Every structure is written in structure tokens, then in C-alpha cells.
């Protein structure tokens, strides 16, 4: 038996001779024997040491054995400490019962039989040793449980951090597809709670046109265990749908049984928009090439024919009737020229965009229309509160504003006010900083039934005069700059006011004198 395995046996008796005899009897057990001559001394030893068995004389001066036992038992550490009483007088069953109630464990009567004492002490010593070993084992187990719990908590924290930091919406479902977990991003995007989305609650976040297909695909995967993938719109908490690429994979246990499904939804709206923009750009470029060829092939003979009819109109050999036919032909040809100039010059005229002063472009446009403005009796009110430059193709901007000013003019055949304003706009939310140009007139206004179709190709309110392409082309040009074109038409007392507002993002630095020279059209 090593020292650390030994247990302490405390012997308490007021007579040193008795203590010596106990020591002799118990010596061969090989445990630590500790002696105390009084109850007080015994208590002192108990408090300082881990004692397996207390061997105690019942009759002692000051505090007798039973009283001593009662004091010992009051201390929580000693509630299970074994106490063996040694009694010189005969103990009745009642005395024993009293002893047991006070926490005694066993009794030995005098004269002490050495074998009996040894056997009894030895049993308790062994019991104590086992309990001590069990406690050690228990502590080790508790420590390991704590460790594993911490590991699990750490792993759980890592999973949550990861799941919430990825840009995707993520979810987990049981083998049958009942969703029981979503990451934070899911809640942020959908604005739902787990209670609302749990089980099949997420179905109504899907677009009605897609939900059936999505569910069929998922059902198939729940049944077969095959990974799932689909692309579909999902409604956000703002009510807008965005497109998501969604995947789900099954997670198997050690018996190849599906325990859960792990799924992600990646927002691909931006990619889709970029692809669409690219397709549109390619289409525009192809149209531009075709338009260039057509322009050349149409404009050359068109000029010759126009000139020929122009000459015919005044030719002396023709009578008035023939000349009127030539004049009509000339007017129709002018319509063709107008339409080819408008539609076929939709495409870039220079190879790269240059810094342009919108104010200069507007001034050019107003200068071009000066005669018309004067004839129609239209008063011009300019209010430019911006001197920034934007990167653009001057001819395109000129076309847009020539169209807006031209429309305004035509809406005011009997005069009115044309108000042209330019403003810098600061970055606001999703809207980048840029420049806003408004062209407002006090003309005939826009009928509500026309408002919706205003930007459609070949829609015109000017019967024979318009091509119906002006605003459509203007919108196309502004969209190329990632800008927007809007209008408002208000009925005011007696008259009406119509305002077209163009926003172009991406204003450059303040205009410098040397750059202003570049911006001329």
C-alpha cells in the first residue's frame, strides 16, 4: 500500500493506555493511526485531515462519545464519516438506536476482541478508500464532460458565426424536408420568424409561378436523397423578389441514413442583371453596326432623291400640278430623312466618352432652337446650379435635350414658359451622386391615358408630325448612362405644367476652364 492510498484512522480516548492498545491491534492494517485524548483534540484533527474511521470511547469527561458524534455530524464534511463506538458498559438496544440516530455506524463492546475491531475498522477503511477513488474518478469524468461541453459549445459558436457570416441564406431540414433552422441572413432578408417559416411556412415566400416546380424538385430529393439545385425568385421583407441559386445536400449518419438536409440560397440577381445588361449591350452594338450600314445605304440615295425633287418643285417646264406632286414627294422625303436622322444616329458617334458640361450642351440646344422659341413666343428661364462634368458622348446628350426641348416647344404653340434647371444630387441610399436636369413647360400637358405609353417606340401624340421615336431613343440613351428619365404632368388653374426630369449618375470633379473647351458639341 502506498502512502497516498493509506487512510487515516482517528482513535479517541481519554486514557492513553487504551489508545496504545488500539494502536497495537490496528497497527497491522497498515493505515495511518492518529490519536486524540479528548473530543476537542479529535475535532481539531478531523477538520485538518481526511479521516476514514473514528474510533471513539463512549464515556469520556467533558464531552462524551454520543455528544461528540452529534457535533461531528453537524459538519457537512463529516456527515458520512464512519464512527465506531467502544463502550465499557452494556448498551441497551435503546442506547444503540440513540447512537445510530446521532450518526454512529457501529459498536464494539469491552472487552475488545482484536480480530473483531480490526475487521470492522478494515471494512470502513476500505469503504473510504473506494469512495475516495470514486470521487477522483468522478472529478475526472466531470472535467471531461466540461471539456467536451466546451468543445461542443465552441464548435456550435463557430458554426453559427460561419453560418451567419456567409452571404448566402442557409437552412437545415429534417430527412422529410421539415425546416428547423435558418441562419440570421434568412431572417434579415425574408423578415419572417422561425415560427412563420418552420415546416412548410416558407412556401409562401416563393413566387406563385415557381413554387410548384421548386416543391416538386425538393420532394424528389427528399425521396431519393439526391442533391437538389434550382434557381427561383424569393420574396424579401420589402416585398420585392430577388433571384436565388439554391442548393441542398443530404447529411448522412454512420449507417448511411439521411439525418438532415443542409441548404443554401445565393442571391444571383446582380449577376442576372449584369448578364442581361451585357446581352442588351451586345444587341445594341449589333444594331449599331447594322444601323451604320443601313444609314449609309439609305442616306446617300435619299439625299440625291431629295435634291432631285427639290429641283423639280421649281422647274419651269412643269405645270403647277406637277410641281405640287414634287413638293408632296419632297415633304414625304423630309419625313424619311427625319426618321433616319433620329433612329440611325442612336449609336455612338465618337469612339470614347469625354468630359461633358451639361450646361454647355443645354445652351447649345437652346441656341439651336432660339428661332423657334422666339417665333412661338416662349420665354426661357434657365437655372443652372451645377458646374460638374460628366463622362458622356456629347452628341447623345444633345439629342436627348433637343428632343425634350423640341417636345416642350411643340406643346406650347401659343407661347408659354420653358424652364430648364440643372442640379447636383448627393449620394442618397442606393442612388449614387450625379446630376439632375429638368425641362419643364406650361404647354398642353400629357393625358393620363398617354402617360403609360409615352416611352414606347412609335408612340406619338403629334399625329403626322412626330416619329414616335424621340422619347424612346432618349430613354435608351439615358439608360445607357445608368440614368433615369421621368416626367410629371400637372393640371394647374386653367393650364398645365409638364416636367421631364433626367438623372445621370457619376458626376466628375468641378469643371475646370481647360476641360470646358473639350465639352463643346
Amino acid at each position, binding site marked *: 500500500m502506498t502512502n497516498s492510498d493509506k487512510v487515516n484512522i482517528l482513535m479517541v480516548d481519554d486514557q492513553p493506555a487504551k489508545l496504545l492498545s488500539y494502536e497495537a491491534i490496528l497497527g497491522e492494517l497498515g493505515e495511518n493511526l492518529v490519536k486524540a485524548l479528548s473530543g476537542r483534540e479529535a475535532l481539531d484533527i478531523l477538520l485538518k485531515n481526511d479521516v476514514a474511521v473514528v474510533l471513539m470511547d463512549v464515556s469520556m469527561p467533558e464531552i462524551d462519545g454520543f455528544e461528540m458524534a452529534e457535533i461531528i455530524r453537524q459538519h457537512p464534511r463529516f456527515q458520512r464519516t464512519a464512527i465506531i463506538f467502544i463502550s465499557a458498559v452494556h448498551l441497551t438496544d435503546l442506547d444503540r438506536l440513540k447512537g445510530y440516530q446521532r450518526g454512529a455506524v457501529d459498536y464494539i463492546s469491552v472487552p475488545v476482541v482484536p480480530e473483531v475491531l480490526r475487521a470492522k475498522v478494515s471494512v470502513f477503511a476500505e469503504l473510504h478508500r473506494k469512495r475516495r477513488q470514486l470521487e477522483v474518478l468522478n472529478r475526472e469524468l466531470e472535467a471531461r464532460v466540461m471539456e467536451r461541453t466546451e468543445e461542443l459549445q465552441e464548435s456550435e459558436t463557430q458554426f453559427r458565426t460561419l453560418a451567419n457570416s456567409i452571404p448566402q441564406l442557409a437552412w437545415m431540414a429534417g430527412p422529410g424536408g421539415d425546416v428547423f433552422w435558418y441562419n440570421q441572413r434568412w431572417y434579415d432578408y425574408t423578415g419572417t420568424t422561425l415560427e412563420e417559416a418552420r415546416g412548410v411556412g416558407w412556401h409562401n415566400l416563393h413566387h406563385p409561378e415557381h413554387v410548384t416546380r421548386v416543391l416538386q424538385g425538393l420532394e424528389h430529393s427528399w425521396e431519393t436523397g439526391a442533391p437538389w439545385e434550382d434557381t427561383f425568385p424569393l420574396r424579401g421583407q420589402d416585398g420585392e423578389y430577388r433571384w436565388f441559386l439554391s442548393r441542398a445536400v443530404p447529411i448522412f449518419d454512420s449507417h448511411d441514413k439521411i439525418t438532415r438536409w443542409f441548404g443554401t440560397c445565393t442571391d444571383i440577381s446582380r449577376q442576372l442583371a449584369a448578364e442581361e445588361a451585357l446581352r442588351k449591350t451586345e444587341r445594341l452594338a449589333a444594331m449599331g453596326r447594322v444601323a451604320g450600314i443601313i444609314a449609309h445605304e439609305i442616306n*446617300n440615295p435619299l439625299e440625291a432623291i*431629295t435634291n*432631285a425633287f427639290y*429641283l423639280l418643285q421649281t422647274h419651269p417646264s412643269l405645270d403647277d400640278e406637277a410641281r405640287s406632286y414634287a413638293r408632296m414627294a419632297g415633304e414625304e422625303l423630309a419625313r424619311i430623312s427625319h426618321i433616319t436622322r433620329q433612329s440611325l*444616329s442612336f449609336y455612338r458617334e465618337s469612339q470614347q466618352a469625354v468630359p461633358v458640361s451639361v450646361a454647355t450642351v443645354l445652351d447649345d440646344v437652346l441656341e439651336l432652337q432660339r428661332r423657334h422659341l422666339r417665333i412661338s413666343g416662349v420665354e426661357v428661364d434657365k437655372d443652372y446650379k451645377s458646374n460638374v462634368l460628366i463622362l458622356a458622348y456629347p452628341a447623345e446628350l444633345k439629342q436627348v435635350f433637343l428632343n425634350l426641348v423640341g417636345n416642350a416647344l411643340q406643346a406650347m404653340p401659343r407661347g408659354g414658359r420653358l424652364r430648364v434647371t440643372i442640379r447636383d444630387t448627393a449620394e442618397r441610399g442606393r442612388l449614387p451622386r450625379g446630376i439632375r436636369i429638368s425641362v419643364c413647360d406650361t404647354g398642353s400637358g400629357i393625358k393620363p391615358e398617354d402617360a403609360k405609353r409615352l416611352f414606347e417606340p412609335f408612340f406619338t401624340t403629334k399625329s403626322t408630325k412626330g416619329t414616335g421615336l424621340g422619347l424612346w431613343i432618349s430613354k435608351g440613351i439615358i439608360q445607357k448612362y445608368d440614368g433615369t428619365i421621368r416626367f410629371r404632368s400637372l393640371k394647374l388653374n386653367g393650364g398645365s405644367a409638364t416636367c421631364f426630369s433626367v438623372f445621370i449618375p457619376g458626376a466628375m470633379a468641378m469643371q475646370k476652364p481647360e476641360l470646358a473647351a473639350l465639352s463643346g458639341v
Partner: protein
Amino acid sequence: MDDEPNALILRKLVLQKAGYDVVTANSAFQALDVLTAQKVDLVLSDQHMPGQTGTELARQIKSKWPSLPVILLSGVNEIPPDADIADLFLSKVEGPVNLCRSVGDVLSRSRTF
């Protein structure tokens, strides 16, 4: 100046009707010959011609006769990067009235200098 005979004749007639004296040439080479042989107040040339563009012709003219105004006409709606060499770059489909007015404008501008 134009390589297409019909267009050339009709444009000449339109300008004559407006009161101008017109000499025609159907190639850049011929145009430079005319300019060397007689005094001309303004050159009106097509931009797209086989072999040489109008702007290239304009550059040659400007190097010899810096003050001689040049108007270029184009059937396509693309303005070439070196269009600034010409005094005016016009679309062919502006029509005869605009053409005559533009010629008049450029002439009066060149005379004031």
C-alpha cells in the same frame, strides 16, 4: 466633290439654283487639280470616298490653302475623330435648304476673317 455622279450633279444643281458657281470633281486627285488650276471660295466634299476620306482631303487642302473653307458631308451618322479639320461636318439628309444655308454661313464666316 463626290464619287457618285448622280449625287454630284444634283447637289451642283441645287447650289447653282442658290446662286453659286460650282465646279465638280469625282476624286480627291481631280479636286486638288481643280484647286491648283483656279480660285475657289469653298470646298464641299463627301466624307466617304474610295481610297481617301473627306477629312484626309481636307487636311491636304488646309496644308496648301489654310484659309480655304471645307465642308464635309456624310451619309452615316458617325462623326470621325478628325472631323475638326473641316469647317463644318454635315449630314447628307439635312436637306437642300439647310445645305445652302450652311454653305452661306461658312462663306460669310470665312470672309469676315
